[in-house]
């Protein structure tokens, strides 16, 4: 079935549209919105956004592929993004990545078979003073160590955290 935006989506998208002088400027916010709704930015999502904004598909595709935050393939329920840039690495980001690989049985770039977790290594998250940092969906978890990471995964598995 072809993807579509429902009435409520259209209302929200119109609110976004009102902030800009033209349709093209809505490309990033519409892609964000579509990713929230559909989980990831598939080719169908790209086509839908292009159609909604009356823009060439090639344009929306070029934007979707330029930026790292648009997921081109499905991600798990919890997307674990570990910062491995300098300040986080100085304080043990490597150990966190190793710990997560051990806990989840996957490598960076992969998703667990049950679709619960995706593990990604990312660049600086702008949170270096509270390093090391992991972003889980929209939330930051800071000042982490291996023990805290273990607890974090535990709570996520139990569905105790709102992220």
């Amino acid at each position: 079935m072809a993807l579509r935006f429902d009435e409520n989506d259209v209302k929200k998208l119109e609110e976004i549209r009102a902030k800009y002088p033209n349709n093209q400027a809505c490309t990033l916010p519409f892609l964000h919105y579509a990713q929230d709704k559909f989980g990831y930015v598939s080719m169908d999502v790209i086509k839908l956004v292009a159609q909604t904004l009356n823009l060439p598909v090639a344009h929306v595709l070029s934007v979707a592929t330029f930026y790292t935050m648009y997921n081109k393939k499905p991600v798990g329920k919890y997307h674990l993004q570990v910062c491995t840039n300098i300040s986080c690495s100085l304080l043990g980001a490597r150990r966190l990545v190793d710990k997560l690989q051990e806990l989840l049985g996957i490598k960076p770039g992969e998703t667990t078979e049950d679709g619960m977790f995706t593990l990604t290594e990312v660049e600086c998250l702008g949170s270096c003073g509270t390093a090391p940092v992991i972003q889980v969906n929209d939330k930051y978890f800071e000042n982490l160590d291996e023990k805290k990471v273990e607890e974090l995964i535990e709570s996520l598995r139990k569905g105790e955290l709102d992220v």
Partner: protein
Amino acid sequence: MSEIVLFKHLIDPEVRNIENYIKLGGYEGLKKAFTMQPDDIIEEVKRSNLRGRGGAGFPTGLKWSFMPKGEGQKYFVCNADEGEPGTFKDRYIMSENPHQLIEGMVIGGYAMGATVGYIYIRGEFEFVAKILQKAIDEAYEKGFLGKNILNSGFDFDLYVHLGAGAYVCGEETGLINSLEGKPGQPRLKPPFPAQYGVFGKPTTVNNVETIACVPDIIKKGADWFLSIGPEKNNGTKIYAVSGHVNNPGVFELPMGTPLREIIYEHAGGIVGGKKLKAVIPGGSSAPVLGPEHLDIPMDFDSLKKVGSMLGSGAIIVMSEDTCMVEAFTRLAKFYAHESCGQCTPCREGTAWLYKILKRIEDREGKKGDIDLILDICGKIMGRTICPLGDAAVMCIKPAVERFRDEFEYHIEHKKCMVENKIPIF
């Protein structure tokens, strides 16, 4: 005790609420601005010596004066991309004291005749964007945003725009392209944004911290700002300290505070009482310094004199347990990853630098690799559309030169010079 301007939440933790912000004298700068002519505001900002806090230290008043006079749509854009590794200061202004930024945006808009503002914030900071949006809604309700603000006849709308994960969008023309809904690839200058900016209209781009300095400059006058910090480097500065210190964090101090005081007093000294080995003073792109530089005043001109730069004021501290080869290979990886690919020297050069460094790090370095690195650096510098290529060179080249013996040791002995090193890879 130094003055607290940007971090008013240290005085009142609830200052993100508009009522409390007003109680602390908030929006008085805006009220005063409306009693002044727009040109007089620009003059006052010029006189204050406020210099951009986003990296380059360009005089803010001068930048504002480049905006054309007269009618026609103009834009004021706030750069809240905060992508430079080591930098985490703007997020605290926005999340804890958002009205300071909003007030600065309206004053800047009025001074430059811009009636629409965008705050371009990195996508990962969605939680910050929500706080900011709430503050914007409050400001609209109280009549500090929208039509005919405080009966001044001036209209100003302010929107938050989320990025989507690309460091190069922090570069102002990359940011403009991104705001227009395109890939964030930087533009060749000229034309400068003041002539041809976002949506083809005159635009000024300033950093969050820069803009947040403006309300107090207008309220208290330029002389007050000039009374803080060394000549031509005035005002307070947020130093963001990370890495091997006991008390990492953000500290608002007078511009020109010595590096030693920031690291050893405010940030609590080096973890485990270890020796300091290297310090990057202004975000990852600032040339690395050593312990002999601890008495340098942290300001634009003093750092320039020792061949580095203040950049974003983000201080990354590395103790004796850090392997410089690993640390700078990691940073090289970052630049290679973030190159937007438009310029051959940057695209190929950063990738090549990373490749050579990684092989040295992997104990497979070859004789001559160091000279090759320095040669490649020379071929990138100054030959690209935007300063990202230069930034990569300014990060890597001084590190390889300063710590050449460590890189050579890796190549010759196929092992690391540092015992008990902290693994980065």
